[in-house]
């Protein structure tokens, strides 16, 4: 049952969005988020929505996939919408109502903002493999090394965690089956009962995770791992023409949105 969990929701492909350098994509997402929070008027929101739609088309990510990802957020979206409708002052839509025209506009904008925010980050994770993402992050954060920030250690921990997620899920499945075979019940009872039933699963899982970590450390040392110093990479990340163009477009978008904000659009 745990095998159904999809992880690192990466959709392999060979579109231009997939081929962009992960650093470029990370920076673009940052630019996009900043632009999103600068948007005030309908024109700006329109531009951003069109941008996201264009990116989806380019990277062959269907609206259905995006909706699937948005599903868990429906509650937050609804709450945002309702709160904004009722708590924004202005001219009522009908005399005596508390719902105002401004409130409706604001609710739509806020919901749109969250949807665009999530969609933008999804576009990143859908088109970039987790490994490429951590590699990109390591290189982007490299300057922080001067401040003694353990960039390499952090990213290698991230990639190890990603590597071991499927292994540990498999292990959890095995332990749960073993406990079920001896009469454990994970599906019925109150929330408290079910949480308690999980304890005999978690304890062996933790024990085995520590044992694995120990063996992994020995195996890594045997393969001459000695930290990030003097390490090279097989897959070099090189910024190409398309990366510069994409970054230029991203900056242009941000500049455009800020310009629109000045005019109140």
């Amino acid at each position: 049952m745990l095998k159904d969990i999809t992880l690192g929701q990466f959709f392999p492909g060979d579109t231009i969005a997939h081929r962009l350098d992960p650093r470029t994509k990370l920076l673009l997402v940052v630019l996009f988020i900043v632009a999103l929070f600068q948007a005030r008027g309908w024109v700006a929101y329109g531009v951003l929505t069109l941008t996201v739609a264009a990116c989806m088309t380019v990277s062959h990510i269907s609206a259905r996939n995006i909706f699937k990802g948005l599903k868990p957020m429906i509650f937050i979206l609804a709450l945002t919408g309702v709160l904004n409708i009722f708590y924004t002052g202005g001219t009522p839509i009908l005399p005596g109502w508390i719902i105002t025209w401004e409130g409706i506009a604001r609710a739509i904008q806020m919901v749109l903002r969250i949807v665009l925010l999530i969609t933008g980050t999804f576009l990143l994770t859908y088109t970039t493999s987790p490994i490429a993402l951590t590699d990109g992050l390591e290189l982007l954060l490299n300057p922080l090394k001067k401040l003694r920030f353990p960039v390499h250690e952090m990213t290698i921990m991230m990639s190890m965690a990603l590597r071991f997620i499927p292994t540990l899920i498999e292990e959890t499945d095995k332990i749960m089956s073993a406990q079920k075979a001896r009469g454990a019940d994970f599906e019925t009872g109150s929330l408290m009962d079910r949480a308690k039933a999980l304890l005999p699963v978690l304890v062996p899982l933790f024990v085995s995770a520590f044992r694995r970590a120990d063996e992994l450390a020995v195996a890594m040392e045997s393969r001459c791992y000695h930290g990030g110093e003097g390490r090279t990479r097989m897959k070099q990340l090189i910024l190409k023409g398309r990366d510069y163009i994409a970054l230029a477009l991203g900056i242009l978008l941000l500049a455009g949105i800020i310009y629109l904000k000045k005019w109140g659009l």
Partner: protein
Amino acid sequence: MSIIKFENVHYTYPGDQMESLCGVSLAIEEGSFVAVLGHNGSGKSTLAKHMNAILVPTEGKVTVCGIDSADEERLIELRRNVGMVFQNPDNQIVANVVEDDVAFAPENLGVEPREIRRRVDEALKQVGMYDKRQHAPHLLSGGQKQRVAIAGVIAMEPKIIVLDEPTAMLDPIGREEVISTVTRLCREKGMTVVLITHHMDECVGADRLIVMSNGSIVADGVPAEVFANIELMEREGLTVPETTRLLYDLKQRGMDLPLTALDVDACAKEIVKQLRG
């Protein structure tokens, strides 16, 4: 010239009363295929861990490729010459993609990217996993994972491969894949292979068989000869190949047979020869 040399090595795990290795002396020739056989707790894994300085002797000396294993300064140099493959393939694969995992060791050694690419492709071809280079390791079978782990160490271009019970968690097909891969690496590439195991049949193809018990070497020689000493093997609780067993039983009943035939054909030939007089 011996590439691995143990001189009167003693080792006690921290907090243990008993010695896990009690005075082991051993010399392994370059390019040979050595199998180490023994029960759980016989000290065979401890022996293996001394070969790439994961453990350093409490007493005595281990020299690998002319480097003293206690020399911390030359630790990386020693380890790049000794590839270690462990029992559980899941706990030694570090990356989400097969080729990235194989690249791990050369990346650690600071090899040029293009050279890493060449070594990775070469290593994957040698273990027959080149087609699966883009796969996620957790979706491979046990035997395939273990072959990836082997590729991961040969990408360091070591002189020696030490395999610590590499087949313990594998099914018969996976075991066969792993053993034939390391045998080929030894015979064709001239690598020194040390195979730690508790499966008799995996030792048959080795040049030399060492039997360990309670931290000491109790037998050392060509596999056929070691197996022929059935009394010793049984005392150590080890079963011998069925062919040796058959020849031994026949000999007990008065037939004059050598005990050194290890495969079925050779065994049959000996019996036929004897019957025809």
